[in-house]
């Protein structure tokens, strides 16, 4: 039942022993041995995150630092997001695009006092670093913060919990960050996440990671949550997973991420693949990422063909599974633009049988971000 070839060559995060002590099931993910679930199980971890607070080790993700006065401008030449316009300590979700407008990775950029802090996907970080080394202007410094850990605290109780350890953090709005001393360690606290819930990501030096993890997991509202529930939470929240919902073959416009492209960038361009992306913004893309809600109880997994009423294939599921909060199967995928209409009935070819479903609005579970 296990498809994990072996764990000998996998890297470990500074929290590896904590996961073991908490009864985690560890699997290989993006070259790291990571907890897929703890003793409670994916369903309980998912619902606990939506009800109280879940603690995630996401130290496998890449943390990078761009330094120098030209850092924001230099990054803008590689992404369609508005980075130069970010106020200090404001954050932006954006994508590294290739010259054809495909997505090389998606990332979060935070404007800091020294430049820009980036968080990129674990599976892409080596390519991202190579890409940045090749394409960044000479005057911009790039540091790989491999000696920092990253944990996420997510859920409606996250703010109350973190306030006990990082007083003042509750004043952060969604997609802003600040530096705090937590247990004597210097922490970059960002109000963001990957669950659709209010919450934080906390970057600390690796030697402070265990102390941070222990003080948070000891809080009565907090339970540890593995990658399994991280995936079901982000799917219900309608958030893309790189390598599944977005990749080099999808553009930000097809992926429904045009909201992340600022007005100045839309007109001004100046990022890889701008010609295609601007054309798609003006004329509409050929296909679109949509929410897909199966009628019955059978989940439709990644790769499931999407058919129209005549049985013609119009698209493919890119993420699909069971949504514990939605209380049933949920999916997202790409369909031809003319079929990407909320409410349109489609069918999903699961194990050779067409099963009824409908195109629906994302997310499946409303976001509860802190926007004062």
């Amino acid at each position, binding site marked *: *039942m*296990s498809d994990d070839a072996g764990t000998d060559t996998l890297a470990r995060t500074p929290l590896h022993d904590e996961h073991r002590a908490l009864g985690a*099931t560890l699997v290989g993910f993006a070259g790291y041995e990571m907890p*897929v*679930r703890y003793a409670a*199980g*994916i*369903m*309980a971890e*998912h619902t606990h995150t939506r009800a109280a607070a879940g603690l995630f080790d996401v130290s496998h993700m890449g943390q990078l630092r761009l330094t120098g006065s030209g850092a924001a401008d230099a990054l803008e030449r590689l992404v369609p997001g508005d980075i130069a316009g970010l106020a200090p300590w404001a954050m932006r979700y954006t994508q590294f695009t290739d010259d054809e407008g495909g997505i090389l990775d998606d990332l979060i950029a935070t404007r800091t006092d020294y430049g820009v802090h980036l968080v990129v996907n674990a599976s892409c970080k080596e390519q991202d670093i190579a890409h940045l080394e090749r394409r960044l202007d000479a005057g911009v410094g790039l540091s790989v913060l491999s000696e920092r850990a990253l944990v996420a605290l997510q859920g409606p109780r996250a703010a109350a919990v973190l306030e006990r350890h990082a007083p003042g953090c509750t004043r952060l709005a969604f997609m802003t960050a600040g530096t705090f001393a937590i247990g004597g360690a210097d922490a970059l606290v960002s109000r963001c996440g990957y669950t659709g819930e209010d919450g934080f990501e906390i970057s600390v030096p690796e030697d402070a990671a265990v102390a941070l993890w222990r003080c948070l997991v000891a809080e009565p509202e907090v339970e540890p949550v593995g990658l*399994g*529930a991280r*995936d*079901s939470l982000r799917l219900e929240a309608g958030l893309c997973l790189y390598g599944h919902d977005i990749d080099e073959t999808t553009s930000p416009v097809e992926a429904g991420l045009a909201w992340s492209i600022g007005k100045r960038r839309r007109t001004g361009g100046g990022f890889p693949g701008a010609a295609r992306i601007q054309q798609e913004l003006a004329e509409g893309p050929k296909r679109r990422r949509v929410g897909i809600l199966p009628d019955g*109880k*059978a*989940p439709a*997994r990644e790769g499931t063909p999407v058919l129209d009423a005549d049985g013609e294939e119009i698209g493919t599921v890119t993420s699909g*599974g*069971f949504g*514990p909060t939605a209380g049933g*199967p949920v999916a997202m995928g790409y369909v031809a633009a003319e079929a990407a209409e909320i409410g349109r009935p489609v069918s999903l070819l699961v*194990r050779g049988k067409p099963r009824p479903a409908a195109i629906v609005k994302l997310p499946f579970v409303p976001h509860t971000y802190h926007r004062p």
Partner: protein
Amino acid sequence: MSGLKYSKDHEWVRIEGDVGTVGISDYAQEQLGDVVYVELPEVGRTVAQNEEAAVVESVKAASEVYAPVSGEVVEVNQALEDDPALVNGDATGEGWFVKLRLSAPGELDGLMDEAAYADYVAGLGDD
């Protein structure tokens, strides 16, 4: 509970007369985690040993359930439709999948008894 015979794919079968009740082992349900959906075959279908007889889905993934013995499906566990978590709660009891009328009872000799299966699982070295 005694009298169960296990396959290497973690299915069990319990024989009463010429009918075998089939399910997945407690180890298998633990590995899968929360079961959210079970797809069962049609009554009357004939399945060969090691052929896919059902599908069990957890939050994360879908897995095949293979027939540990050959036979004709004479009954399926309708209760799993409304309550797939029965597989987690009582894998070798209420969480059964199908009943098969055995067509080759000799196949049972190739399956593991409870003790042999326990050794087999322990040897997988997967906690």
